[in-house]
């Protein structure tokens, strides 16, 4: 049984087009040193993790390689995974997390699942019990390769030191290429100790894996023709544009064609918020105009987005009148949820670049006017009272507005999950791409605090503001320890409504206000932050807000700001789950 298991994860090295040239000079080192050397070869400067028995040899090497690679001790492995995600999301580079076997490895799983559904490039390295103990229920043995299979783009167990360079090269290649995703490499302790002749060569291809299909010029031309002839075209772009670094290409396409362009949550910030052709966010709590007009457009152009149910609502009443064009790198996304008329496969940087040449200049003024008219309605019914409230209690919206003012829209906003997240995505102003870091597909509470750490460490020159609910904050609050020890100058804003607000909103709207287990008696968050020697302030009155936000943004070190907001505010607009985008509610 054991033998079989070892064998089952053994890879066929013959099939990889890497490490074939024996010309590279070799050096005799241990497996654990090889792991560090591979990371350095891949350009990893920071990794996040937590030590334990099965990964200790690697930590011993990390000690020796201090100064060459920086290991950040988080306070929980989930924190390490999310920090690596934050690092990846803001930089476009592969994030790296490391953990020991058993509980260390399983604690990574939520972050891995989050990275899988949000296409975040991650390499997770876990220690494993020595290979002779595999399958024996040894201390801290867990089948992490089995556990992580459904939530990884690829995973693999290494039981021999000599496989380490090839497998890690492949791991980084798979994580970052094509549609990115998380990869987990599990390395037995005996492989870490073994000595072998080390040499490293980056992976440049795997024969069974096509990262990006070639752009088909025929379908591209058909798409262009549809767009050129459209009277009411609508673009909805997603994270694919950011992952493909196609922001400029998208902007050029929009500006030339005059097509109104809306975004999914993960697509936010690819085009500046203030861009005149940017018509806002689609989806459950998105803007009124792009949601409503999805069911009015004649051509719907989806770019690097996957028609998530939070975006489409009821599929049977979604954009039925429109011809649908879908640009995507992942063939499995085509027709998965929405039937397309024209699919343009490939890297959208390339396809959008080619599309631009085929497009006619247009401005679609009347069509844009429809967006403006609906925006006015949303402004009157929702936005005004969110941003310029007349009631006594503070709103989440006005906090965002204040942050926009103080950061001039240049900050990266890392939001957690809940009402504050929707408010942050709706109202944060973005001038720069890769600035909206949030858990979209999985909706992982606890994401923001560690993700903000990773983001700030990857891009120290950027202002990073975490917007977190009082619930989600307490899911990974221990990472304040990491912020303190590593002196990470992140700005943490907790929007405290003393509720699991988003769930409470649903209870109010759909469960006759039966607030089952959503009210929270919270600790003194300011005292907790101060316990970690983080400057902290609490705001309860509107008059204090502007100054407090200003002080926070001006601070050179980490800063915690708790804003006590209205307890029972709701986020609108809202498409109730399962309803049509046309049935978007303003109250």
């Amino acid at each position, binding site marked *: 049984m054991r033998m079989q298991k070892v064998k089952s994860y053994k890879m*066929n090295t013959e099939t990889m087009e890497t490490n074939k040239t024996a010309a590279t000079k070799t050096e005799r080192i241990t497996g654990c040193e090889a792991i560090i050397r591979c990371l350095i070869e891949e350009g990893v400067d920071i990794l996040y993790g937590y030590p334990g028995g099965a990964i200790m040899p690697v930590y011993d090497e990390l000690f020796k390689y201090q100064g060459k690679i920086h290991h950040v001790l988080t306070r929980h492995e989930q924190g390490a995974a999310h920090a690596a995600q934050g690092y990846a999301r803001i930089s476009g580079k592969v994030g790296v997390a490391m953990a020991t076997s058993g509980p260390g490895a399983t604690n990574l799983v939520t972050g891995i699942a989050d990275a899988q559904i949000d296409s975040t490039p991650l390499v997770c390295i876990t220690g494993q019990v020595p290979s002779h103990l595999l399958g024996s229920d040894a201390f801290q043995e867990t089948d992490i390769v089995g556990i992580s299979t459904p939530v990884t783009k690829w995973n693999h167990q290494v039981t021999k030191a000599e496989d380490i360079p090839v497998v890690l090269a492949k791991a980084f290649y798979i994580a970052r290429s094509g549609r990115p995703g998380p990869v987990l490499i599990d390395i037995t302790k005996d492989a870490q100790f073994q000595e072998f002749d080390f040499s490293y060569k980056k992976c440049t291809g795997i024969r069974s894996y096509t990262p990006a299909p070639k752009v088909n010029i025929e379908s591209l031309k058909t798409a262009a023709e549809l767009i050129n002839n459209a009277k009411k075209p609508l673009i909805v772009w997603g994270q694919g544009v950011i992952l493909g670094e196609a922001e400029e290409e998208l902007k050029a396409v929009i500006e030339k064609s005059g097509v109104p362009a809306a975004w999914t949550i993960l697509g936010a910030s690819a085009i500046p918020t203030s861009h005149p052709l940017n018509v806002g966010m689609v989806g459950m709590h998105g803007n009124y105009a792009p949601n409503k007009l999805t069911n009015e457009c004649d051509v719907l152009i989806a770019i690097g987005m996957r028609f998530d149910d939070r975006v489409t609502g009821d599929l049977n009443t979604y954009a039925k009148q429109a011809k649908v064009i879908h640009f995507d790198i992942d063939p499995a996304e085509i027709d998965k949820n929405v039937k397309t008329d024209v699919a343009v496969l490939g890297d959208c940087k390339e396809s959008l670049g080619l599309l631009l040449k085929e497009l006619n200049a247009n401005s679609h003024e009347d069509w844009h006017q429809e967006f403006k008219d609906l925006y006015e309605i949303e402004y009157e019914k929702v936005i005004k009272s969110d941003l310029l409230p007349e009631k006594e209690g503070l709103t989440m919206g006005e906090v965002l507005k204040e942050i926009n003012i103080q950061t001039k829209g240049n900050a990266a906003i890392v939001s957690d999950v809940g009402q504050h997240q929707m408010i942050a995505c709706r109202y944060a102003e973005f001038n720069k791409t890769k600035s909206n870091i949030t858990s979209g597909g999985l909706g992982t509470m606890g994401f923001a605090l560690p993700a903000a750490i990773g983001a700030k460490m990857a891009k120290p020159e950027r202002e990073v503001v975490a917007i977190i609910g009082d619930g989600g904050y307490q899911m990974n609050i221990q990472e304040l320890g990491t912020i303190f020890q590593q002196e990470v100058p992140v700005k943490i804003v907790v929007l405290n409504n003393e509720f699991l607000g988003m769930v409470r909103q649903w209870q109010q709207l759909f469960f006759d206000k039966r607030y089952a287990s959503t009210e929270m008696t919270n600790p003194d968050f300011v005292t907790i932050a101060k316990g970690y020697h983080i400057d902290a302030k609490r705001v309860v009155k509107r008059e204090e807000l502007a100054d407090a936000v200003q002080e926070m943004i001006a601070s050179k070190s980490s800063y915690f700001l708790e804003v006590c907001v209205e307890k029972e505010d709701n986020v609108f607009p809202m498409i109730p789950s399962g309803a049509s985008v046309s049935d978007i509610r303003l109250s």
Partner: protein
Amino acid sequence: MSEEIKTLTISVYTENNIGLLNRISAIFQRRHINIESLTTSQSEIENVNRFVIVVNITEIQAKKIVGQIEKQVEVIKAYYHDDHETIYTESCMFKIKSDLLFDEPQIQNIIKESNTRIVTVNREFFVLEKSGRRHEIEALRKELNVFGIMQFVRSGRIAVTKDEMKITELLAQIKN
């Protein structure tokens, strides 16, 4: 594309990686699709495995499933075909008490008429083997069941397609 449920044969060419079985079966499991049978073996290409998976689903589902399967890093290519597009067979074995060969002469006729092969005979038992379509095997099992069967086992479907699946060309293309 048809929304009617059909028996479809999914053929998957993969790198020789047994861990892949987990990934592939998980794709069906997540969507509550029952796998009628699954067979893996060496394919016509050295070091390339072939999975033959039989499912009862609609073509729309099959297209999505094949997309998800192909997305796996170690999958080279996947296809689905209906019964008219494949040549397929299953095989089965019976273990039966040897006494019956003499006590029940009818059995010998059944063996002959059904083109069943005798694999081995010893004092206690004999073993039959037959390959064919499901209904043929089922008919044989019913006939023999009257006399008592010690053990019966049937394999999953194996199938080749009438159309070409140009894996060698595909692999050559990737190489270049």
